[in-house]
């Protein structure tokens, strides 16, 4: 923490001295309305506020620095009360004030080195990304999850059509799972009235580092990658047991050590682009599944439409886990699709859906977005979730909702 804050001060002074500085930011208010109440959460209207500012500077031709801060508020206790700037993003609640990114990028010839808190995205698919291992997410709203940055070093060596990438993340950043007393943690009707308490030892988060390697080939007619990841799953196994008096359910999160071996490819054909992505996950942590996640999708842009459709699948090779929180696996064995249409330069609509192949769960999201002038954008979203309570998607069937967002960008 102290090291990062010191780095922040150094970067800030470097940025202040730089001639080539750009910024972007926005202030956004969002309102969610849930027509149905939930067993553990009677709240049906939630308001969020987010202010974000990001600054990018180039103090020297070989050096770029990037910094960003978020300021948040919530009407539903989803934001920590602590005003101290948060760098690690490891809390169960969103930080009030956080360093969203803080990194330095050094380039020399064909080598690029990124150091600090940064976003690292792997994979080519659009809806499910099995190889995207350095990308924890904020799942306080499971179907509207933002990515979190990780703190580490990333080196890329580009040589013609080949790019070799190595990543080292010394400190683990978990995905933020739903709050236990809120609707995205589903409590069975039979357990209504029981308290669910977080029994996770804050010091028990994985201490080891994560490493990854990726080789990307950019061919004339296709792109492909091979990747390897050795570290921890940002999504936890869950241990739930009865505890204490008055009776409660104690929940502990365990982040298993995993290795994954991945590949992805994009092949533009005459009428559409085919994209595929797959990863095989192994683990030495007891009670952790071993499995293959894969997605195959086709993409086509026609007129003002961008259409994406495909299938996300899973093959469990070694079933050992009893309970997990795994939205990536929860969206598999599903047909997935997304369509967006640009009405005019200011207005667009988008539709997204995932339907389980056995019909046990489905969600559909529709979005209308309209810009006003150069700064304002209004977005209305409707999300419908249906299905069987035993299904990952179906369990959220009481969480269908409508959302309105108003953003001022600057």
């Amino acid at each position: 923490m102290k090291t990062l804050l010191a780095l922040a001060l150094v970067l800030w002074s470097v940025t202040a001295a730089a001639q080539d500085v750009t910024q972007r930011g926005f202030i956004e208010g969002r309102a969610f309305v849930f027509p149905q109440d939930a067993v553990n959460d009677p709240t049906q209207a939630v308001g969020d506020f987010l202010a974000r500012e990001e600054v990018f500077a180039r103090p020297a031709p070989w050096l770029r620095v990037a910094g960003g801060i978020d300021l948040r508020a919530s009407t539903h206790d989803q934001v920590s009360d602590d005003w101290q700037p948060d760098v690690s993003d490891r809390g169960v609640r969103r930080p009030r004030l956080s360093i969203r990114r803080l990194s330095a990028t050094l380039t020399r010839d064909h080598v690029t080195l990124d150091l600090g808190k940064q976003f690292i995205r792997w994979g080519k698919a659009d809806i499910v990304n099995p190889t995207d291992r350095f990308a924890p997410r904020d799942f306080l709203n499971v179907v509207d999850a933002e990515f979190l940055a990780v703190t580490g070093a990333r080196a890329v060596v580009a040589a013609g059509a080949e790019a070799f990438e190595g990543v080292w993340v010394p400190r683990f950043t978990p995905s933020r799972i739903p709050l236990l007393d809120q609707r995205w943690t589903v409590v069975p009707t039979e357990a209504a009235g029981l308290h669910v308490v977080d029994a996770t030892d804050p010091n028990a988060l994985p201490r080891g580092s994560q490493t990854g390697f990726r080789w990307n080939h950019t061919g004339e007619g296709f792109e492909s990658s091979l990747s390897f990841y050795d570290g921890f799953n940002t999504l936890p196994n869950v241990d739930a047991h009865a505890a204490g008096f008055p009776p409660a359910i104690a929940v502990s999160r365990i982040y298993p050590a995993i290795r994954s071996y991945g590949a992805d490819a994009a092949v533009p054909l005459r009428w559409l682009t085919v994209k595929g992505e797959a990863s095989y996950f192994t683990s030495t942590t007891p009670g952790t599944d071993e499995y293959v996640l894969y997605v195959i999708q086709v993409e086509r842009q026609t007129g003002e439409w961008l259409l994406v459709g495909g299938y996300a699948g899973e093959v469990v090779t070694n079933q050992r886990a009893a309970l997990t929180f795994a939205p990536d696996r929860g969206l598999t064995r599903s047909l997935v699709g997304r369509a967006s249409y640009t009405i005019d330069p200011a207005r667009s609509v988008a539709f997204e859906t995932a339907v389980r192949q056995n019909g046990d769960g489905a969600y559909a999201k529709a979005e209308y977005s309209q810009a006003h002038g150069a700064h304002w954008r209004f977005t209305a979203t409707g999300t419908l979730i249906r299905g069987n309570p035993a299904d990952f998607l179906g369990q959220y069937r009481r969480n269908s909702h409508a959302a309105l967002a108003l953003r001022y960008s600057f």
Partner: protein
Amino acid sequence: MSRRFSVVLACLTCALLGAPLSALVDDARQIVVESQRRTEAESQRYEGLLQVLSAKGKIADKRWTFERLGSHGRSKAVLRFTAPAEVKGVALLIVNHPERSSDQWMWTPGIERDRRIALQDRSQRFFGTDFSFEDLEERDVDQYDYTLIGDDAAGGAACWKIGSVPKRTKVSQYTRSIVWIRKDTYALARVENYVNDQVVRRLEYSNFEKVHDIWTARQLEMADLRRGSRTRLTLDKLAYDVPLKDDDFTLQAIRRP
């Protein structure tokens, strides 16, 4: 009118007028070669103001910075939006090739992802403007076959009117194009792009200035004739032969604003 019929008609016209077709073709190509030679520069940079005028007259302003390294056919370019605020940082990398269509990637900072623009998607509008992704490519003389159609005026200047048809190796949404080249400066004055017999996009060049000894249009207006909308691009802070590094024209580089 099919492409084959156009060629047959051009041959018949040449035969009737007594001019050898090969001479007209050579003349046309030489004019385009000279036009291209006069715009050669090691690099180029400008700040562009884009004004999108819909059929109903609504105007949306966008701004981008454009940097190009190399010239004609072997160049690389990065185009990065600077306004409006919500699209700041969106970038397009274009790697042109002399023998085939360019490679293009778009970086969207909001989702921290880059996306390769597939060839079949190049006919789509670029970010709500009337330019398609293909229109942002650099046209290289060797990617087209040319025929001199005749003389005409465009933008108040006498021009050669030249037909161009993409070669087999060039994947294009357009069946053919007609190009107006000014006789006084060899600068492009107008381009009409056809799909079969229909003009679908018309690009007009205006406000010519000599910058670094290159006659350059400071204003380009692309009209999408099917939609009835137009996009006006005004070039500010235009400079040629500026010092740019090859490393700034890579996928890694467009991820960094």
